[in-house]
């Protein structure tokens, strides 16, 4: 069996022009598919950045909330209601919103403002510089040192700015797991300072962050919150809800899917056509092999091996090319959103297997229909 596969391998790779065309077709298709889906993954991940960074187990919100940025303030009594639910270990108010800050240079810059519960600082970021207690100091804000940090003019601890005619002071620099989607810097402060510095509506709580006593308590918490007319979601459920919104209600998902399908069709067209030509050019040789005594299943094996070899090699090259592109892009565009996850790789692999399957199907059909007698007949 090994000998037949070696012949198949040599027939394939020694035809350098066709082998290169096949590889380019598959590599290009895989590159496009992974690039598109990884961009989408990156967007979805960034869309949930606040949920990931805060890390609360359960989030209570208005049922009309679709993304973490699209907050609908909750009345204070809901916080009391949630705290009274058996199974709730603790529940804290949380503020998430946007504002404008005036930098030392006079430039106005939009920022995300995160207001942490004053008592617990639940959801606080990991500090790179400064001490977390300093957040209680007068006018204190902690700046997140991510790819948007430069938009605050790279402030050091002690730097000052204006926010809604209040003085703000950077008391620490922090690191978070995920940067936001909208390309604006993030400032952390306390919940009560947000209420003082930023104009708010009658209700002020963006979300209530809940820590249940155990995972078994979550269904009861959800049920009781729903009874009060609100929605409690676990961290994963909230991220899924955000993903669903961007996937199905914004057109981003449709566009990405279209691009992925187009990439698939391009890959299929190039490799299918080239592989079919490759089989056609060798069809008389395959017929001669049949006449000599090769069995149909051996011919099928040869073609499947050739298609699989091209597909997997192209798949590897496509992944490599995509990784290289993302790496290069990040050197120049730090907040470039693409991330490659196992799902992207799995989807591309399935697509490549389908391309290889369809390409080899036409080849196999052709080879199976050739009769050795046709070789004699000329």
């Amino acid at each position, binding site marked *: *069996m*090994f*000998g*037949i596969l*070696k*012949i198949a391998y*040599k*027939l394939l790779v*020694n*035809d350098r022009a066709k082998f290169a065309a096949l590889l380019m077709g598959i590599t290009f298709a895989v590159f496009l598919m992974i690039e598109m889906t990884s961009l989408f993954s990156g967007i979805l991940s960034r869309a949930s950045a606040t949920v990931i960074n805060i890390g609360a187990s359960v989030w209570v919100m208005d049922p009309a909330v679709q993304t973490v940025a699209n907050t609908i303030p909750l009345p204070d009594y809901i916080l009391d209601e949630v705290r009274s639910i058996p199974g709730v270990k603790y529940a804290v108010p949380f503020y998430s919103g946007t504002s404008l800050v005036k930098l030392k240079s006079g430039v106005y810059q939009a920022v995300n403002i995160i207001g942490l519960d004053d008592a617990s600082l639940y959801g606080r970021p990991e500090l790179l510089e400064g001490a977390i207690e300093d957040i209680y100091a007068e006018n204190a804000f902690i700046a997140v040192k991510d790819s948007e940090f430069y938009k605050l003019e790279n402030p050091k601890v002690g730097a000052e700015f204006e926010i809604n005619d209040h003085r703000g002071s950077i008391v620490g620099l922090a690191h978070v797991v995920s940067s936001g989607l909208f390309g604006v810097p993030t400032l952390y402060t306390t919940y009560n300072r947000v209420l003082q510095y930023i104009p708010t509506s009658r209700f002020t709580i963006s979300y209530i962050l809940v820590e249940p006593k155990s995972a078994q308590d979550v269904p009861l918490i959800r049920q009781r919150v729903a009874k009060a007319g609100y929605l409690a979601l676990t961290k994963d459920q909230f991220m899924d809800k955000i993903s669903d919104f961007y996937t199905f209600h914004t057109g981003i998902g449709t566009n990405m899917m279209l691009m992925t399908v187009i990439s698939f069709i391009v890959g299929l067209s190039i490799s299918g056509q080239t592989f079919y030509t490759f089989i056609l050019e*060798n069809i*008389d*040789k395959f*017929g*001669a*092999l*049949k*006449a*000599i*005594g*090769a*069995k149909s299943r*051996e011919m099928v094996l040869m073609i499947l091996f050739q298609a699989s070899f091209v597909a997997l090699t192209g798949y590897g090259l496509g992944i490599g090319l995509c990784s290289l592109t993302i790496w290069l892009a990040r050197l120049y565009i730090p907040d470039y959103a693409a991330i490659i996850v196992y799902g992207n790789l799995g989807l591309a692999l399935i697509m490549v297997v389908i391309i290889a399957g369809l390409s080899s199907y036409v080849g196999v059909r052709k080879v199976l229909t050739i*009769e*050795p*007698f046709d*070789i*004699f*007949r*000329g």
Partner: protein
Amino acid sequence: MTGAAIEAIGLNKWFGEGEVRTHAVKDVNFSADFGEMLYVVGPSGSGKTTMLSMISGILRPDTGSVRIEGTDIWSLSNDQIADFRLHKIGFVFQDYHLFPRLTTVENVSIPLILQKHDWDEAQRAGLENLEVVGLGDRAHLPPVKLSGGEQQRVAIARAIVSRPDILILDEPTASLDGDTGRNIVKFVRNNILNDRRCIVIVTHDSRIFEFADRILMMEDGKMTGIAEGGTHEE
């Protein structure tokens, strides 16, 4: 080896349906012995290629049977016939049908690889057979770098590499000039034919008739006679 290598009994083959139905081979009977070089000759369309395909296990006759070394090959399953061809019959095709992307020695070793011999062992045997046909020094060239006569000899080396008892040559001189064609057939006669092997050649090239033991003549699908061959120039 004694006895008939090939026995064709009452072979008939029709092609097409209805008004275009053609009786391509009509009740052909003959036998060929080991140590014999049998020619099948006749004009184009006389049915000689169809008959050759039936006796070599490639085209199933509509009626009649073919016995090779006593085995009724058309009573075997398709896989068994393929195996039979692989082990008992060597083919030299008119257009050679060598793989241009393989080296000469890899082309020659294909039957052994199909027989599941080890790759290196098949290459060694391929090289030995290339030396038999005088092309040992061309082993690692692709066939396209060889002349027509050399490619024909590579095809012969491929046909004999698995030591088949029956060798089938389809128009071996059709693509060659006169001298090269004669030399090839003379080489087959002197070096490939032995008393354990039967060689059947389909041809209409009268310049090589002298190398035949017997000449089976066909016309319009029928066997019209059998003649003695030529002088077997050594």
